[in-house]
């Protein structure tokens, strides 16, 4: 039987590796796949940590919907020549070779130092223990209005920034 801690640590390391790959890869399609993979791994972590609803949101919105939008947008772009791609890849490798090393060192330091958890918790139910459905529909109306506004801002941004200008 594999220890839960080992599985969680492995998942977190895989997630970090996928995130680094997403940032350093020079090909847009690979970056989109890397992001989807990061989200999928985060979904598993969320589920294992007892947040199935948050995991479902993460999987459907981040790993699903956003990936589809990214891939659709990437199909509208033109490819760099293979020489240019190879050149960019070697440039990125030269500049960011230390990133995985940094993550490993940070992990080892965190494991070795084992920072003591000394929170004196609130004597009752904390905010982190509330039910997600109750939070969304009963107590956070204002935030839902805020989310609508953010979506509208995004929509205006797409219309404005991706539309051809009439003049020049």
């Amino acid at each position: 039987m594999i220890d839960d801690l080992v599985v969680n640590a492995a998942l977190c390391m895989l997630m970090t590796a996928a995130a680094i790959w997403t940032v350093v890869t020079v090909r847009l399609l690979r970056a989109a796949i890397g992001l989807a993979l990061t989200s999928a791994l985060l979904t598993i972590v969320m589920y294992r940590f007892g947040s199935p609803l948050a995991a479902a949101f993460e999987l459907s919105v981040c790993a699903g919907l956003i990936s589809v939008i990214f891939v659709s947008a990437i199909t509208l772009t033109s490819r760099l020549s293979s020489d240019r791609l190879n050149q960019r890849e070697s440039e990125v490798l030269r500049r960011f070779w230390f990133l995985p090393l940094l993550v490993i060192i940070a992990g080892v330091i965190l494991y070795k130092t084992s920072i003591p958890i000394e929170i004196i918790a609130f004597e009752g139910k904390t905010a982190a223990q509330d039910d997600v459905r109750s939070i969304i529909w009963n107590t956070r109306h204002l935030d839902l209005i805020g989310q609508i506004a953010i979506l509208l801002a995004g929509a205006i941004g797409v219309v404005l920034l991706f539309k051809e200008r009439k003049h020049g």
Partner: protein
Amino acid sequence: MPTLLIILPLALLLILNLPLLRAARRVSFWLCAVLALAQVVATATHMGGLIPDLGAAFDPYIVLQLRMTGLSEVVLLAIGIVVLASLFTARAMIADHDERFKFGNLVILAMMGLNGTALLADLISLYVFIEITAVSSFILIAFDRDSDGLEGSFKYIILSAVATAALLASIALFMMVSPDTSFAAVRAALAVSQHSFYVNLAAGLLLCGLFVKGGLVPFHWWLPDAYSSAPAPASVLLAGIITKVSGIYALIVVSTSILTVGGAAGEVIMVLGIVSAIAGALLALGQRDMKRMLAYSSVSQVGYIMLGLGSGTALGVAGAVFHFFNHAIFKSLLFVNAAAVEGSLGTRDMDRMGGIASKMPVTGVTSIIGFFSAAGIPPLAGFWSKVMIIIALWQAGHQTASVVAVLVGVLTLAYFLSMQRRVFFGRLREGLGEIREARMSILVPAVSLALITVAAGLFFKPVFSKIIMPVGEMLVK
């Protein structure tokens, strides 16, 4: 009224974008301006106790967790004024009706985010409304779709993402010890767990996130690019109010409602205030680009606000709040004037200007009022807020910080005099004989902002005793 300040901008945005109401787009500028003006009038009259809160009739029907305090009123007034200035500048600078309509949409969304930030007493909602403003700002900076704007916007996105990560991590940690995320609950939870490593980490992350949003040194490097590369009306909004509310107002609220002013957080705020005031002023001295110089000046002025806040006394916090308001007004004025100069000359390079006050007298005079207020020259509003901060620092035993504040005032005078000499004074530079005064749409906000700066200075006594000092006492209590 608080409910209406959130709902009305959103409702106006939806109405303007209804497919059947395309005719409304033609009058969208005036509708947006009326909304901002209504906010100014409603807040000013409410502050003065002239009329009862008419909007309160709506509050029981739409239950939102909002609170109206003296501080919120000051901030809401500044938001309304700066939004109006930005809209009028856009009317002069953006020729295309469709583009101006989209700009108005973004300004209204940003206004909704700013209003929400000013009215909230909950960490998660604060984060959501700061994000509304941030997303609108990203698009406003890149509005012209030129490479400078896109680069400035990209830098702002990256730094904002770092700030967002810090804010969310902090909220997550607070949620482990608090029954909810309201300021009162988090403050109570902090009192119980104040020596916990994770709680202190959460407080540190919260402050760091807001330092980035406010553009304090050493988190300031996105700010000059964002301010200078944004189109002129967006610069007015960004420099005048967006970074002030998203970063500095949020810092004032968090450090007085959640953390303890004058404690360890106060020391950190004080140190960053000193560094920002000095570094911002020194960096402003070496600039040729007018908007970049004003941007670095903002970093320095924000340092003053932090010094007042860090002093931990009622007078210091009141001075910080008054300087917040004054800075919103005079910095918007200076950016409106920068737009006027750029519009007439087609450049922001101060070495290619000279003597234009003879051709642009209104812009020249209002610019002098703006920079005199920024430099703390009596009897303008900026003088009083700086004096309040300097006295508060001295009384609280921070004599060194007090002396630094005085010396930075001298530096401020130096770089603004340099700007004034290079741009407005002296003989008219060759090739500038044909330039004209800015259009009325720019002169109206410039003159209005200059008048507010003069009036807030001349009527300092009632402003201090009836509005500013009670706010300082409430926040420290």
